[in-house]
């Protein structure tokens, strides 16, 4: 069952007179509840794919269908609604709101989503029940990223998009964060897409899209993806 479908999706950027094809007619499908990785060097177009899937950017050609709805061609307002209800984001630099406590950062998701999960429970799940009333500036990088995961999942989205979630963390913390993403989304039956340039991470995924120069160079399927502990970083 195809949950996410890209059909000949293309994204062009005009910079002055030059046209840059960030994503060049790619097609792929992903199933519901899977754990996926988009792998590639910087400039390969992987973040553009993530942005288009997250409704933050639109394609210049082709179709993007998510959960039987075509999101390419949606209006600004519809895209916002889509992000609000369907998508959870985890960023490389966490992007917590500095003026809100950990708990409030998660409650923020609660406030906008139609069917949210309990904020306190989500923070317990990521192991931060004791730091709920701390501000982001009082948390370590790993802790901030855990708050950010809790926030993404508290919205109870269909899809969790992670852009280099371990990029700013040391390897031990990175592992823990990845395990969390994987476990929690597994429990909640979420579709996860991680964008990274870090090859070993791809060994955790069921589907790996290798991107190069805006095209999908190779698609890999792992019947038995590895556990985080098995990965050699």
């Amino acid at each position, binding site marked *: 069952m195809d949950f996410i479908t890209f059909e000949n999706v293309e994204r062009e950027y005009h910079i002055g007179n030059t046209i840059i094809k960030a994503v060049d007619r790619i097609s792929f499908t992903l199933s519901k509840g899977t754990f996926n990785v988009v792998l590639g060097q910087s400039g390969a177009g992987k973040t553009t794919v993530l942005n288009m899937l997250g409704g933050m950017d639109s394609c210049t050609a082709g179709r993007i269908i998510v959960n039987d709805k075509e999101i390419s061609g949606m209006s600004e307002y519809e895209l*916002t609604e889509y992000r609000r209800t369907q998508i959870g984001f985890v960023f490389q*630099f966490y992007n917590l709101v*500095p003026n*809100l406590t950990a708990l409030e950062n998660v409650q923020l998701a609660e*406030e906008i989503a139609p069917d949210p999960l309990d904020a306190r429970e989500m923070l317990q799940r990521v192991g931060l029940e004791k730091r709920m009333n701390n*501000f982001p*500036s009082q948390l370590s990088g790993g802790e901030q990223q855990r708050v950010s995961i809790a926030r993404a999942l508290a919205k109870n989205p269909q899809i969790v998009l992670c852009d280099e979630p371990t990029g700013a963390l040391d390897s031990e913390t990175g592992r823990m964060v990845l395990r969390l993403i994987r476990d929690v989304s597994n429990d909640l039956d979420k579709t996860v897409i991680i964008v990274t340039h870090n090859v070993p991470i791809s060994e955790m995924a069921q589907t790996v899209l290798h991107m190069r120069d805006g095209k999908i160079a190779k698609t890999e399927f792992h019947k038995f993806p590895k556990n985080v502990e098995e990965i050699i970083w």
Partner: protein
Amino acid sequence: MVRGALFKKSLRDMRKSKAQFISIFVMATLAVTIMTGLDSIWFTVQNNADIMYNATNLSDLWVTVQNPSEQDLWAISKIDGVIQVEKRFSTEADTNLSGNATLHVYALNDRSTLDQPEIQEGRFNKSGAVLDNSFAKAHNLKVGDTISIKLNGVWLKLPINGLAISSEQVSVVKNSATLIPDPNTYGFIVIPIGTLDSIYGQKIYNQISVKTAPDTDLNEVVQKADSIIGDKLIGITLQKDSLSVSNVNGRIQQFKILSLVFPILFFIVTALITQSTMVRLVESQRTQIGILKSLGYNKGSILWHYTSYGVMIGVLGSVAGLILGPNLFGRILVPQLQLTLSSYRLHINYWNFAFALLLILLCTGGVSFYACWQLQKDTPASLLRDKPPKKGEHVFLESIPSIWDKIKFSNKLIVRNTLKNKKRLIMSIIGVMGCVGVIIAALTVRSTIVGITDQVYGDTFTYDQKILIDPKKADSRYLKNLGLNGITQLIQESAVEVIYPNGEQKMEPITITTIDSPLIHMKDVEGNPISLPENGILMTRKLCKTLGIDKGDSIQIKRTGEDYVPVQIVQVAYMASGQGIYAADSYWKSLGEKFSPTALLIQWNGPPDQRFLQSDAVTDWATRESQHLGLSSSMGVINFAVAALIIMGASLAFVVLYNTGILNFVERIRDLSTLRVLGFHNREIRNLVLVENYFSILIGTISGIPVGRFISWLIASSLDERMDLLGNITLSNVLIATAMTICFAWITNSIIARKMKQLEMLEALKSVE
């Protein structure tokens, strides 16, 4: 100025935040424009007046005495400090011209050098007259024409040999029936004393002009002259108390006060905007400062680099302000002040320029310096390290969980963010407050003046005509027995010499009338009707205030040809126009004085009695409507001032709200982008930024009302010393000012909102700055 590379960097930085730097520039320009502009008005008037006084050799005091003897003159010339004395003849005369035109006649000796007319055209010689330049223009008279004046009942025909202006006629009105100078009805003429021989049969003098050395104690001269002349003395007038000079000085004083108080607001706002802009700039360039330091730039050059932003803008703003202010205000407004000066040439007060420049540099450069002082103390290594995320802070409200828990998250965010940037909040509140205050003041001053004219010529005075009469031809008995068809009231308007409790000696206008006052309705300060006291005098509120005396105090009044007698102030009245002393005729007589009416007020029951109006006893008359119109005609200048004030207020609100809005947005662009990505709609994001503005608009508007009250009062009380304007603000003016402010704020907010729509959420998320 700065090392090449850094200078280029600062220009680029400024271009990047051009809205902020333009705002600082605009505010600095406004502050300097207003300060130097208002200052240039009084400075120009003062200098041009002084030049004119010097050129015409204006006397320092005049001793009015009937037929002074040579001994009198000689004795006065021997008083310490007196350097020159001259006698002349000074009176008023009717003319053969239309419209009740009257001329003040100065008859001078051939060799006279004091109180000379300043010739504009033609010359002054033995055989003819020199006529008031603006009076001549108003009546289409030229050099070579003739004019007839009536002195002692005899018409005197004089050739006009020259046109001139006079230091004693810079700002004078014809009489108490006129309110603003009008060259159609009043002017002056200077004639050689010899031309009067034919009328009076001899040379006639009634005034001694006295010139003293600088720094002479004039009071001593006055006392000595008083004892020399003795009983013959009619009065002594000091130059500063003479009509024209005191009017001019009053004007100078008004603008001095305004130029000191008014610009303060704009300087404060300039400093606040600079502060918020520079703090943000310096913070965002934290790493750059680290790089510069590690490259080997020293502390001083980095400090100067950031200070120079403010200095540059400050210098640019003051250059613009120094050009705009004196030219807009001094050059354009001074000729509109209805002062007849020999020149309106702009005079530059370089001290004020320097002071304005210093102030603005403190508000821009000084504030910039302070903003980067903190950062430059850090070591390059710590600067180059990433800054920890901005600290969130618990706020007071959180300690009351019953409230805090019920607040929506977005409101929590607004509350925390607002309280974290208190300076910015204060800045926008001050801006809105200033805007509301200035607009309220503008509207209040306008409606007060409109209201005053309505009040004075609607409530206080209810006569149809004010008829000035010649006391020599018509005494009160004659007037009472005229049998005119209407309600009449006789008044005597003159001046008395008064000694106040503090020892100050002054000439004050006095009005004497009947206790039963059917056409003048006086009210006390609270607005209750009052009548003239039977055993004392009534004084107007403004006069009491200027002198620092009150109801119950006693002053000394000089009786004609006798010494002083103490009288008590029994009543204090509020009179918008016509400040002075009021007394009942019965009380006046009980002091041993005579009641000789100078004017008859009348409310006709039918058409005005033309036979009476044309009679010899009547010297002039004015209708209440024409007086009313006379006051209203100065509304043009008022409307201009009101428009200028509103524009000033609007730019204040705009600049401040725009800046806080944009800063609020730019500083949090990452947070807002995150929220946007999480699925917040544009509208919701906009509220996060703009609610803070709504809040400052609310607080600013409320606190702007007392500010408006203060500014109104300030302007009203310094506007004209003959008027007592209370400057009370009305609800409708407050509402209009509020509506206008909200309108400006709404425009500003929609501009910010449009800017925010262009928010590139992806750009902001890419990396940590």
